[in-house]
């Protein structure tokens, strides 16, 4: 199996506060992350794409297409934004990194087929670092793909 992993970076701010809990409970549970004014992180997002390698180009996906997808569907929503206020999905959802990852997973599930339906490629893993110390990872099911050795040998094209 072959996969490519691309790492992206986005700064965003958030505040962890659950409307289902009292003020003291929120303060106790979320600690510094409950600061009323919020705070920010430089998030790191990794997408792992797996599937059929295009024999002619030697690419799973042109990076400009992958980058364009991530920019328009994900980073455009989160980068330099206050997640609680600016991202509609978090109107009532607490923006823990678990929930940020879940929302990103939903965006991928929703938009991937229309963006990459012409290629046999799938997102197999999404990983987020909130800081270098805190990482969150989601593994997505993908159909079985055979890049047989015969197919691998087809990845030959004379370059200019």
């Amino acid at each position, binding site marked *: 199996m072959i996969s490519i992993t691309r790492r992206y970076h986005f700064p965003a701010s958030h505040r962890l506060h659950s409307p289902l809990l009292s003020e003291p409970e929120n303060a106790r549970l979320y600690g510094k992350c409950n600061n009323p004014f919020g705070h920010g992180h430089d998030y790191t997002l990794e997408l792992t794409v797996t599937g059929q390698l295009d024999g002619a180009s*030697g690419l*799973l996906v042109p990076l400009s297409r992958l980058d364009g997808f991530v920019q328009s569907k994900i980073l455009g929503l989160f980068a330099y934004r206050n997640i609680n206020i600016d991202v509609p999905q978090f109107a009532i959802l607490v923006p823990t990194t678990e929930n940020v990852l879940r929302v990103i997973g939903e965006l991928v599930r929703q938009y991937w087929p229309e963006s990459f339906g012409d290629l046999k490629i799938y997102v197999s893993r999404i990983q987020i670092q909130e800081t270098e110390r805190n990482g969150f990872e989601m593994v997505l099911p993908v159909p079985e793909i055979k890049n047989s050795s015969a197919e691998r040998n087809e990845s030959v094209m004379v370059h200019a």
Partner: protein
Amino acid sequence: MLITRRAEFSASHFCRAASLNDHENWELFGEESHSGGHGHNFVVEVSVEGEPDPITGMIVDLKELKDILDREIVTPMDHRFLNYEVEPFGRVIPTTANIALEIWRRLERRFSVARYRLARVRLFETADLYVDVD
């Protein structure tokens, strides 16, 4: 059990298909398509799977693993222009995926012994981009 050894090589390359014009190559490969070439500090992580030998306590001798990586990858590729100096990249476009597949091919035959096998090749082209072959 997996054992992973890391090696580095710095090399130049470019990615272009002869059958495509400049614009099409740009669409497909972006900045990588400039025919003068450019370089990366490639990092390769090679994982071997097996069980520790009951006498030595090792899956594979790390010195031996290092020697194989040096002989098959680092010596032929380090400080080289992949398109012009390293086979098969005279005819295969040296995309990150194709370089990772070539490293897999070169190593697979070296690790086809009963006690352990090649489990994964992870090739970083940059810190933000890597390919896994497994």
